[in-house]
C-alpha cells in the first residue's frame, strides 16, 4: 500500500468477561479496497466489525478512519455504514423509507433525499419495489434494500456482516458478482466479514485470516493459497493435503512416508507440515518408481475430478485434482508424485508471529 490507509486498526484488544475476543489485532485497509475478515465462528471477526461500527468498545487499541479516532465518536456519528447479517430492515417502513432513513437522520432536504434514494434504488435494481414493505420481498430483494440503505449515505467505509449467508446458492453467486460490480461502481471501501473462504477468495482484494482472536495471516487470496503462513491457513483456505512431520534441509520428514521435498525457511528439526494442493499432486502409472497408492474414490465435478488415493503409511487419503473426467476407478493402483510443495511450521504461536512478519514485509 502506498497511500495512507483509510482504516487503521491498531492493537485492538476486546474482552468479554474472562475471554479475550481479540488479541491486539492490527491491520490497515486502503482506500477502495475490497477487504475480507475471514475465520471460523468465534474467531473475533464480528467483534472487530462491531468495534469499527461502534457497537462494541475495545478494551484497548485504536481504530482510525482517515486518521480520525473512531473510538472517541459515538456510533451514530461514525462515517461508517453497515449491512447487517439479518439485514435489520425496519419492518414498519417501505423500501423507500428504509433507504431514506439515513439521509433523514442527516437532516437533508426532501428533494435531495428523494433524488438520492431514487438514484440508489436504480443502482441496486429495486425500481418496482420502492413502495413495498420488507415482508413482501424475497431474501435477495431484502439484501438489495439493506445494501441500498447502507450505501446511500456514501460512507467512507462499508461494513458487510456475512452478506451472503442468508441467501440460497444461486442468488448467492449472482449477488457475489454484483457486490463486486457495485464496489467498483460506487467506489467505496468494503470490509466483509465471512466464515466462507470461497466467498472471501472470490470477492476480496485482500483477506485477513483470524483465528481465536489473533490475526493469522493477511495477504491477497493468491498469496494465501500459494504461501499459507500456518497449518491453519493452509487447511482453512482451499483444500490441501497436509503431511505432518519434522523439517529437514529442503523438506519435511513425514513418518511413514519419508522425506517430502518442500520449500521452507524454517530451522531443521522443527515440527512442520508439508502442504500439497490437490492440483499439485500428480498421479502416474503404477509401474513408475516412487510412492504407490490405491484409488479409493473418484468424484466427478464437471470440469475436474477429485481422486482420493490411499497411501500405505498415511492415515488420511491423499486428494488429487485432475482435469476433466478420469479413467481411474476404485481399486486401481497408481503412482503418486508431489509437485509444488511448501512447508509451514506446526507451532501455532510461531506461525502467528511469522504471519505478522510476512504482512509487514
Amino acid at each position: 500500500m502506498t497511500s495512507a490507509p483509510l482504516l487503521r486498526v491498531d492493537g485492538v484488544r476486546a474482552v468479554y468477561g474472562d475471554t479475550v475476543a481479540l488479541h491486539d489485532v492490527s491491520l490497515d485497509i486502503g482506500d477502495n479496497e475490497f477487504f475480507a475478515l475471514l475465520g471460523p465462528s468465534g474467531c473475533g471477526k464480528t467483534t472487530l466489525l462491531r468495534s469499527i461500527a461502534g457497537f462494541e468498545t475495545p478494551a484497548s487499541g485504536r481504530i482510525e478512519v482517515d486518521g480520525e479516532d473512531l473510538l472517541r465518536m459515538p456510533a451514530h456519528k461514525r462515517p461508517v455504514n453497515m449491512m447487517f447479517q439479518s439485514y435489520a430492515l425496519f419492518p414498519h417502513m417501505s423500501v423507500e423509507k428504509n433507504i431514506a432513513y439515513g439521509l433523514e437522520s442527516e437532516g437533508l432536504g426532501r428533494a435531495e433525499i428523494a433524488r438520492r434514494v431514487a438514484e440508489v434504488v436504480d443502482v441496486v435494481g429495486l425500481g418496482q419495489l420502492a413502495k413495498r414493505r420488507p415482508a413482501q420481498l424475497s431474501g435477495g430483494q431484502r439484501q438489495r434494500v439493506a445494501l441500498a440503505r447502507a450505501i446511500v449515505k456514501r460512507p467512507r467505509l462499508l461494513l458487510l456482516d456475512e452478506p451472503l449467508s442468508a441467501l440460497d446458492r444461486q442468488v448467492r453467486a449472482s449477488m457475489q458478482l454484483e457486490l463486486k460490480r457495485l464496489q467498483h461502481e460506487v467506489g467505496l471501501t468494503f470490509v466483509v466479514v465471512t466464515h466462507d473462504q470461497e466467498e472471501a477468495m472470490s470477492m476480496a482484494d485482500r483477506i485477513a485470516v483470524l483465528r481465536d482472536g489473533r490475526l493469522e495471516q493477511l495477504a491477497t487470496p493468491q498469496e494465501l493459497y500459494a504461501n499459507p503462513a500456518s497449518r491453519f491457513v493452509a487447511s482453512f483456505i482451499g483444500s490441501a493435503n497436509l503431511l505432518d512431520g519434522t523439517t529437514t534441509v529442503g523438506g519435511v520428514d513425514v513418518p511413514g512416508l519419508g522425506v517430502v521435498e518442500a520449500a521452507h525457511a524454517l530451522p531443521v528439526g522443527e515440527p512442520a507440515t508439508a502442504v500439497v494442493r490437490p492440483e499439485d499432486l500428480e498421479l502416474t502409472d503404477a509401474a513408475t518408481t516412487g510412492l504407490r497408492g490405491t484409488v479409493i474414490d473418484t468424484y466427478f465435478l464437471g470440469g475436474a475430478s477429485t481422486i482420493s488415493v490411499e497411501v500405505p503409511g498415511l492415515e488420511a487419503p491423499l486428494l488429487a485434482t485432475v482435469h476433466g473426467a478420469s479413467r481411474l476407478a476404485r481399486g486401481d493402483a497408481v503412482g503418486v508424485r508431489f509437485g509444488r510443495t511448501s512447508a509451514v511450521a506446526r507451532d501455532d504461536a510461531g506461525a502467528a508471529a511469522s504471519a505478522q512478519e510476512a504482512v509487514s514485509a
Partner: protein
Amino acid sequence: MTSTPHQTTPGVRANRVRRGLAPVPFLAPGMLFLIVFMAIPVGLLAFYTFFKRGRFGGLVFEFTFDNWIKLLEPLYLGVIVQSIGMALVVTLLALAIGYPMAYAIAGLSPKWRTIALIAVVLPFWTNFLVRTYAWILLLNNAGWLNQALQGLGLTDEPISMLYTPQAIVVGLLYMYLPLMVLPLYASLQQLDPSLREAATNLGANPWRAFRTVTLPLSLPGALTGCVFVFVPAMSNFVIPELIGGGKTVMVGNLVRDQFFEARDWPFGATLALLLTIILVLVIVLQSAVSRRVTEGPRRG
C-alpha cells in the same frame, strides 16, 4: 398478503379445504364453552333490553324502547361519560408508568428479567379483596399515609384521600398495571436489537432511534396493554364501591344497582349491553390500528 392470483390445481384445492377443517377439533371445546356461557347470556341480555320491568325484578313481556331512551337521560349519560373518562385516565397513567418499566425489564439480563416479571405479577397472586382493603388501610384519614405525612410535619390535618375519585384511579391503576406491563414487555423483548443498531448506524441519535424504530414497533403491544387495562377498569365496580365509597358511580356500579337494588332488570341489562358494546368497539379499534401499524396501509 400478496395479491397475486394463485393457480390452484384441484389436488391443491382439496388439500386446502382439508387443512381448513383441520383446526375444528382443536377449536370445538373452547368455542362450545364460550358459546354456551358467553353468547347465550349476552343474547338474553339483549332480549331483556326490549321489555318492561317487573315490579320485583324479572320482566313484563311488553315490547318497548324505553330502556334505550332512558340511557340518554343526563344522569345516566353522565355516569357513562365519567366511567369512560376514569378508565381513560387509568389507562394513560398505566401506559406512562408501564412503558418505561417494560422497557427497562426487556433490557435486563435473563435472570433479573425473570425476577422483575415475577415481581410484576406478584399482586395477582394475592386475594383481590385483601389488596383492596390494604388500600383502605393506607389511604383513610387515620391511615398510614396520613400518619406518615403528619409525622413528617408536612400537614397538620389528615388529607382525605379515601373515597375520592383519585383514590379510585389509584386503586384501579394498582390493580391493572401488570396488564399493561406484560404485553408491552413481550413486544419490546422480541424486538430485534439489530434494528436499533441499524438506526444508530444510519446516523440516528438515541432519541431518534427510539422514536422512529422502537416506539412504533412496540405500538401493537402498547395498544394491547391499553385494552387490557381499559376494559376491566371501565367495568370494575368493587373498587369504586370500596375505595370510592360508592360516591363516585361508575357504569359497573350502576349495572349492579339496577339488578340488586332498583330491581330494574331490563334497564340493568341495557346498561350492561352498552358497556359490552363499548368494550367490543375498543377492541375492534385496537386490532385495526395494530394491523395497520404492523402491515402498513393496504395496497390497491
